[in-house]
C-alpha cells in the first residue's frame, strides 16, 4: 500500500514536471527550446542567459507561463474538491457540480453578460460567477436541512432540482440576449485559461494552498465518514459540522476555479476516481494525489487545446471532456 502510493506520487510529480517543460516549449510559435527554458530561469533569478528576442520573451513569459500555472492551480483545486464531494456523498460518481455550484456560477455569468455588462470591467463576469455559485450552494444546503440534520440524499436531489432551475433561468435570459452575448456565454461555458493574469493567479494559488491544508486536516474525518454517518458520529466526529465545512470549502474552491477559467468539466469527476482505483480510498493519500493528477490532466488538456487547431485554439473544457471520456 505505502509503496504503491509513493510510486504513484513519484510518477505523477515527474509527469507534472515533464508536462510543465513541454508546455513552456511547445506552442503555435516555433521558439528555440533551450532559450525558452532559460528565459524562465532568467526571470526567476535575474540572470541573463537566454537569447530570445523581446517578442519571443512575451510569448513564453506572458502567454505560456501564466496559463501553465493557472492550469496547475485550477486543476488541483477542481480535483481535490471532486475527491471531497465524492467522499461526502459516499458516491464515486459525484461531481463538485452536484451541489449546484457550477450551474449557479453559470447563472451569475449570464446575468453579468446580459443584464449589466462591464460594471466592474473585466471582473464583472468572474465576480458574478463566484457569487452565483456560492449562493446556489447555500440554497441547496438550506433545502437539505431537516430536524435530524443535513440529509445527504436530499442534498443530492436539491442539487439536481436547482441545476434544472438554473438551466431554465439560463434559457430565459438567453432568449433576451443579443447574438454577441450568446456567443460570449457559449464560449465562457466551455472554459478557457486564456485570462490568466497576476491577480487571478495569486487568487487561485492562495485558494489552492488553503484548501489543501483545510482538506488534509479533515482527511481522518472523511475516512471515518466512509463507514457511514452513524458510525462516524460514534467515532466522535461532528458530522453536521464536517458536512457544512466541506460544502462551503468546495463551493469556494470551485467558485474561484470557475471565475478564473470558466466551467471546466470532468476533472473533478474523473481524477479522484482514477486515483482511488490506483491507491485506494484513504483520503490522506487520495487528496494530495488527486491534486497532482488534476494539475497534470488540466495542463495536458491546455497543451492539446493550444496545439490541435493552431493558429486558433480549442476551449480547454472540450479537451478535458474528450480525455475524460477516453480514460473512463
Amino acid at each position, binding site marked *: 500500500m505505502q509503496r504503491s502510493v509513493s510510486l504513484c506520487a513519484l510518477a505523477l510529480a515527474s509527469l507534472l514536471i515533464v508536462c510543465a517543460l513541454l508546455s513552456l516549449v511547445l506552442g503555435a510559435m*516555433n521558439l528555440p527550446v533551450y532559450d525558452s527554458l532559460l528565459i524562465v530561469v532568467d526571470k526567476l533569478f535575474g540572470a541573463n542567459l537566454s537569447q530570445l528576442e523581446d*517578442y519571443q520573451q512575451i510569448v513564453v513569459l506572458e*502567454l505560456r507561463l501564466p496559463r501553465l500555472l493557472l492550469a496547475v492551480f485550477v486543476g488541483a483545486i477542481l480535483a481535490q474538491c471532486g475527491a471531497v464531494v465524492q467522499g461526502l456523498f459516499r458516491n464515486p460518481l459525484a461531481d463538485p457540480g452536484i451541489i449546484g455550484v457550477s450551474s449557479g456560477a453559470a447563472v451569475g455569468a449570464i446575468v453579468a453578460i446580459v443584464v449589466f455588462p462591464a460594471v466592474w470591467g473585466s471582473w464583472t463576469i468572474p465576480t458574478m460567477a463566484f457569487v452565483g455559485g456560492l449562493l446556489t450552494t447555500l440554497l441547496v444546503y438550506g433545502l437539505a436541512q431537516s430536524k435530524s440534520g443535513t440529509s445527504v440524499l436530499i442534498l443530492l436531489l436539491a442539487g439536481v432540482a436547482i441545476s434544472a432551475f438554473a438551466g431554465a433561468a439560463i434559457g430565459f435570459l438567453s432568449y433576451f440576449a443579443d447574438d454577441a452575448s450568446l456567443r460570449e456565454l457559449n*464560449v465562457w461555458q466551455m472554459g478557457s485559461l486564456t485570462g490568466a493574469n497576476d491577480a487571478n493567479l495569486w487568487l487561485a494559488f492562495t485558494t489552492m494552498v488553503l484548501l489543501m491544508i483545510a482538506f488534509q486536516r479533515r482527511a481522518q474525518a472523511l475516512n471515518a465518514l466512509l463507514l457511514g454517518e452513524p458510525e462516524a458520529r460514534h467515532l466522535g466526529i461532528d458530522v453536521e459540522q464536517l458536512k457544512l465545512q466541506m460544502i462551503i470549502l468546495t463551493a469556494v474552491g470551485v467558485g474561484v476555479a470557475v471565475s478564473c477559467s470558466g466551467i471546466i468539466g470532468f476533472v473533478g469527476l474523473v481524477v479522484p476516481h482514477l486515483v482511488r482505483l490506483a491507491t485506494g480510498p484513504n483520503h490522506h493519500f487520495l487528496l494530495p494525489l488527486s491534486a497532482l493528477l488534476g494539475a497534470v490532466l488540466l495542463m495536458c488538456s491546455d497543451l*492539446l487545446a493550444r496545439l490541435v487547431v493552431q*493558429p*486558433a*485554439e480549442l476551449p480547454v473544457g472540450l479537451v478535458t471532456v474528450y480525455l475524460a471520456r*477516453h*480514460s473512463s
Partner: protein
Amino acid sequence: MIRLPFLFFARTKITLSAFAWLKVIVLMLAPVALYADERPRLISTDAGVTELIFALGFEDDLIAIDVTSQLPEGFPALPSIGYHRTLSAEGLMSLNPSVVIGSEHIGPPSVVSALTQAEVKFVQLRSAKSSDQLRDNVLTLADALDQKEKGLRLLTTVDAKLAELDRTNLAGERIAFLLSMDDSKLRLAGEGTSGQSFIELMKAQNVADFKNYRNISAESLFEMQPSVIIVAGSDVESAVQSLLDANPVLTHTPAVKQKRIIAVNGATLVAGLSVSAINEAIRLTQALSNSPALVVQANN
C-alpha cells in the same frame, strides 16, 4: 483508465516530430522569405473586414481569416484563427502578421494587450451598420495599408451605387426581414441588426419595433401586415417556397398576396453592410419596382 497517460504521450510525440520537420522547413525557407517577401501580411478577424479586403483588392496579401469569414469560390483556403472574441495571441504571432484587422469586438483583452506589447499592428474598424460607417471603414483601412488611392477609387464606386439606390428606393414600404435558419421558426430582424441596416439602405421601414433578432409567431407577423417580405437563407432557390409551406397563414399578408416576397443571399449580410450588400439591395429594389407582381428569385 490506464490509457490516459499513454494517449498523452502518443500525442506529444507526434507533435514533436511534426514540429521538428516544420523547423527544418522554416529554417530552409527563412533567408528566402527575409529578402523576397516585403508584401504586407494581413490577418482578418471579422467577416466584414474580409469582405472589405476583397473589395479593395488586397486579397493576395491575406494570410489568415476567422471562422465567420467566407472566401469566394476558387480562392485558395487560408488558415483559420478561430473566433474573433477568443483569439490566441501565440497563434496570431506565429503567422508573423504585419497588420491584424478586426472589429471593435476583437479580444479577449489579455490577448490584445500581449499582441500590442509584441508590437503587432492593429486596425480596428467598427462594424458597418450604416453606409456612412462603411465609407469610413473603406478610408480607414486603405489609409492604414498606405493605399489611399485604392480606397478613394472604391469609394467612388460605392457612392455611385448609393446614388443609384437613392433613385430606385422603396420609401413607404413596410418590410419584414426574416432570417430563415429553420422554416418552422420565424426569426424577425429588429433594430440594430444587419437586417435593419439592409432595410434602411433601401429607405424602407422595418415592421419590427424591438431590438435584435427575435422568434415571432406567424400570427404576429400577419398582424404586422408587411408589404414586402425578405427571406435571408442559405438556400436562395427554395427559401421562399419552404417558408410559405411551413407557414401557410403568411399567404394572406399583403406582401405575399402581391407576390412581393424575396429571397436574398444571407452570406452577404452576416457582417453588417458591405459592398456586396449594396449590390444585393440594388438588385432587390430594381426587381421590386420593375415587376411588382412577380415572386422574385435571387440569381446568385
